[in-house]
């Protein structure tokens, strides 16, 4: 059965690591939905967050193949309900007739306007990917000029950490 899941991967913080990881996905035919990478609490490691869908076979192969890469230090599937966040910058048309509706949406979604002109505005939204999806849908009628999403970052709830899991 296909299920969405999130993998958190600790990797060496060195040149070419992301290439090694993504090249393995291509080679083994894994399709991923999103991937983010960034620094961690330990400078020698980076953390890659991968969201993807697949059955048990895909999930196990993905984990085992990742573990075989020398640059990978730890791989874990996050719990069913981890804390997930994504950030989006979205540029929309600022037409006078729509301005009030856009500002209401910004308010309700606890987003913020970070650039403003009489022609357009740029809005920053943070939250669960589903919240971001909903905000995009809401903005569509007003005219989306450009948008950019970071992909998911995620942590398990509680005091568990990847390295002590």
């Amino acid at each position, binding site marked *: 059965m296909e299920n969405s899941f999130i993998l958190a991967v600790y990797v060496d913080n060195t040149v070419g690591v992301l*290439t090694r990881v993504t090249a393995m996905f291509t*080679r083994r035919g894994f399709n991923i939905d999103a991937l983010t990478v960034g620094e961690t609490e330990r400078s020698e490691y980076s953390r890659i967050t991968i969201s993807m869908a697949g059955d048990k*076979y895909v999930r196990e192969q993905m984990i*085992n193949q990742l573990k*075989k*890469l*020398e*640059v990978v230090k730890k791989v874990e599937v996050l719990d069913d309900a981890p804390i997930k966040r994504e950030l989006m910058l979205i540029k929309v048309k600022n037409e006078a007739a729509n301005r009030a509706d856009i500002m209401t949406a910004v308010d309700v979604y606890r987003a913020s306007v970070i650039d403003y002109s009489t022609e357009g505005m740029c809005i920053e939204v943070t939250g669960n990917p589903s919240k971001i999806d909903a905000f995009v849908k809401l903005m569509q009628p007003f005219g989306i000029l450009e948008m950019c999403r970071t992909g998911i970052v995620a942590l398990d709830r509680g005091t568990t950490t990847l390295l002590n899991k």
Partner: protein
Amino acid sequence: MILNGAQILVETLIEQGVTDVFGYPGGQVINIYDALYEYKDKINHVLTAHEQGASHAADGYSRATGKVGVCIATSGPGATNLVTGIATAMLDSIPLVAITGNVPNSLIGKDSFQEIDITGVTMPITKHNFFVKKIEDLAPTLRQAFSIAKSGRPGPVLVDIPKDVQVGKCEFTAQGVVEKKPLPKVKEERIDEAVKLINEASRPYIYVGGGAAGLGMGKEIVAFAEKIDAAIGCSFMGLSAVPQESERFLGMQGMHGHYASSMSQNEADLILAIGVRFSDRATGNVSKFAKKSKIVQLDPDSAEINKNVHVDLGLVGDIYDSFKRISEKCVEKSNPAWLDRVRELKQEELAFEAEIAAADGAPLTPKQVFDIINEEKLPASVITTDVGQHQMWTAQYVQFDKARRWVSSGGLGTMGFGLGAAMGAYVATKDPTILITGDGSFGMNLNELATAVTYKMPIVIVLMNNGVLGMVRQWQTLFFGKRYSNTVLERKTDFVKLAQAFGAEGYLAETPIEFRKAFQKAVKANGPVVIDVRIDKDEFVLPMLPPGGAIDDIITKVK
């Protein structure tokens, strides 16, 4: 002491116990070759005719001994010429360290003369690779390369060293040989689960693969098979891992495996798989593979569990340790009905083999060639092959008398592997070395004859010459309506004269008597000998499971 990078490289190789390396000089490794000149009393460099030959030689060296093989090439084309050899080692889990030179750091990324991103090129075909940016990193990186190559599931590692790092100077202190990282031991309750499954079985089959080939556990496997009254079979890579004189040993299974071995595996109710990866060539259609059987798999690589075939129990860790603990805990069993069935299958196999032999009217048949090789080869001979029909006949017919005597490209199926690999195996063991090849494969890298002559390597080259690309032709006969597209060679090469031109000896053999005489002379020669063995172009490798087919589709005769 303060040394330059090239000296540090050679010192580190010596420190890691390397006594022989294979390679070819060039612009960006001149400094390394200068250091090799300086250290020539401590490290033997074999100059091959082509970098590909050096990579296969390092591979053959490793297969025959278990040591890490080392090859050296210059940047650009030198490095890319190693690629097929590295990929060959990767697919068969052979520990190699490939050293390449590169342009200096200041010229990297500028499309400089003979610059290639070889770490990028080899990323998918190495276990890991390194680009050494600073001389301070050189010795630690090389030590790590050896550790990675031989630990866990072994594999090739490439270390790319730019010219300025070879020239730069740095403090060096020799250290000890890096040890393999110990593999985890399987938990006792998992061992008990395996024991329970084996104790419950009445038709057990022990399936031995390349992962067991180097562990020297052949006699223990036979003793365990006797204890639980099991049959033994092996994968292509598992040949020479188990002593063949045991009547329980049924030989290789799979696409061109022995009939009795494949059939018994299909009828077994328990398969104990030791260091195998269930390649498509071994299983055929996985959805129909060994359906009546529970499978217990021992492997160092967790990614091999459930990758190709779903197993009932996968024990990841030290294969030998798991096997020993399982074999001690299992109860003695007697399975007379199973052994009778296995013998019956063996009789069927002998019967159709005899039928094929009787129908073959050729003056010299492959079976006759291998009977003579088995009778006349010297003890402890290393058997190397290229790829194709001759390789499968070798796998089926040759009798091995020692572990690590089987040197053949399994996973990648590299035509042109054999001569380089034979040179490496000979340098490593100094034991009698036989290359069985075909006219197609031999044509790919026969330039290495020059190397074998120069270094007086007494390699017996049995060239099974049928004038066609036999294995592809066999598929064309069976599955493509005899449309022999580009498999009829029609070359005019005189292999006897060719051998002589290289400074080797060459004999022609068209009958069993001629072949026996030629082979007897060849095993006593002081340098390489090519025996041009003429066989018919329509000999078949049988039995055959068609690609993607199941055991019921087995082909045992061709009309």
